[in-house]
């Protein structure tokens, strides 16, 4: 019972808010607070030696950072709400401190505006299709949101079809709405996904990994068989190859990718390429 206090103090999460920069790449737990870096004076608009007049002379100005998934603003600090690794991306151009976010593993999808997802049509009611996207509510899809659709020329969508679309409205207070056209009115790959093929579910982290630029897995898979593949940010992947056997092999590889190291993966690919 008489624990030395010094040992305990180290592990008190949140009792000493750490600077966000020092924690990059480490695992953070919910409840921890992170300090934002302060603005440097050299960035004043007038050039060396000039500083913009601030009304509140006492307050130190902080850099404007974007708070990504897993973080919430609380006062002038960031509160961690999910467990994962803290990441940071520098701003491409302009001012601002970039984006901070927490890379966490999740199976359940929460709709986000702009995300491309694969949905399954569950109901047709009047002019609206109800599409199940794996979130807490089915999304609504209007029949006019397809390329070349007019009131006379309705799209051929049945209950049970797979739809690849993006969210135009997705916030916590409203029912999510999706469309199958982009802002110019072109389909751009979206719409009803064709016949055959296989739809399966993976974790959201794996999808992000596969969609990252220069993903080795996709390049290796592409060399194996000719295939069509659609990734939905809601954890769903649709895959189609020439034969059913090849489709199943591809599905198994992608599902297992998560748990394999890159060496094991290369082994399996080489074995498959031989056979």
């Amino acid at each position, binding site marked *: 019972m008489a*624990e030395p206090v010094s040992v305990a103090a180290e*592990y*008190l999460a*949140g009792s000493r808010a750490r600077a966000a920069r020092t924690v990059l790449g480490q*695992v953070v*737990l*919910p409840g921890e607070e992170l300090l934002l870096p302060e603005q440097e004076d050299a960035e004043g608009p007038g050039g060396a030696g000039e500083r913009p007049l601030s009304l509140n002379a006492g307050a130190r100005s902080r850099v404007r950072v974007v708070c990504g998934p897993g973080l919430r603003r609380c006062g002038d600090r960031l509160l961690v709400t999910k467990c994962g690794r803290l990441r940071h991306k520098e701003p491409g151009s302009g001012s601002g401190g970039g984006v901070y976010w927490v890379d966490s593993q999740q199976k359940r999808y929460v709709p986000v505006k702009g995300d491309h997802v694969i949905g399954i049509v569950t109901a047709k009611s009047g002019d609206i299709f109800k599409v199940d996207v794996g979130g*807490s509510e089915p999304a609504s899809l209007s029949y006019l949101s397809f390329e070349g659709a007019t009131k006379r020329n309705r799209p051929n969508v049945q209950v049970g079809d797979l739809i690849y679309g993006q969210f135009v409205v997705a916030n916590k207070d409203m029912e999510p709405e999706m469309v199958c056209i982009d802002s110019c009115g072109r389909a751009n790959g979206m719409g009803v996904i064709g016949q055959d093929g296989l739809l399966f579910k993976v974790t959201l982290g794996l999808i992000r990994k596969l969609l990252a630029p220069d993903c080795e897995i996709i390049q290796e898979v592409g060399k194996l068989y000719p295939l069509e593949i659609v990734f939905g940010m809601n954890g769903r992947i649709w895959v189609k190859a020439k034969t059913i056997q090849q489709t199943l092999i591809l599905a198994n590889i992608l599902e297992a990718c*998560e748990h394999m190291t890159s060496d094991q993966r290369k082994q399996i690919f080489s074995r498959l390429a031989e056979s």
Partner: protein
Amino acid sequence: MEEEMHTDAKIRAEIGTGCSPRGPGCSLRHFACEQNLLSRPDGSASFLQGDTSVLAGVYGPAEVKVSKEIFNKATLEVILRPKIGLPGVAEKSRERLIRNTCEAVVLGTLHPRTSITVVLQVVSDAGSLLACCLNAACMALVDAGVPMRALFCGVTCALDSDGTLVLDPTSKQEKVSTWLWKGRGLEAKGPESPQWDWLQEARAVLTFALDSVERKLLMSSTKGLYSDSELQQCLAAAQAASQHVFRFYRESLQR
């Protein structure tokens, strides 16, 4: 980034940190925890404290029935299933305690009109069951990625009849003391009679739920007789013990 993102079934059966079984100084039992062991729920965890083991699964944020939806926050549901028999009133009351603790910690306002369901199954009960359920629920919520403002843990302590504190008691140490009639027949004799035996077990059992940010008290559930100062003593001991639990959480959540 690839190698950091691996999630091979997340089997991290961690051994309890620094706390060997039952020394006079540190009195928490051996801990172990395993995450992501069930394929259907969005998050799952199994928590082991000595011989007490609880399996938790979390579904959410998912669809909610219109009758149960709350317009501005998530509806949290806890289901606790005992090892044998049908769930009874004791399970219902524990469910309510766990639900109130989770509601204080989960950021429900980020997911209004959804439901977050925590399902707990008692695999084996050897004392400190409520604390073990709380720990399992916390690990499962973290595994599911439900946004939380802090982590929480449960600690149980038992007060002996002479005032000694036992943290994380076994079921034998938890039995609140009682008079045992070892005489014969139904004579209406009082406790002074030699045929009554006083079981030297716990006089009171207290369970606390503490949060990880400032060790604040989230929930307390007590049974038995204790004085004001003893309550403060138990609370302080539980706060000290919770540091071990949070350190164990941190180690087991490092990938």
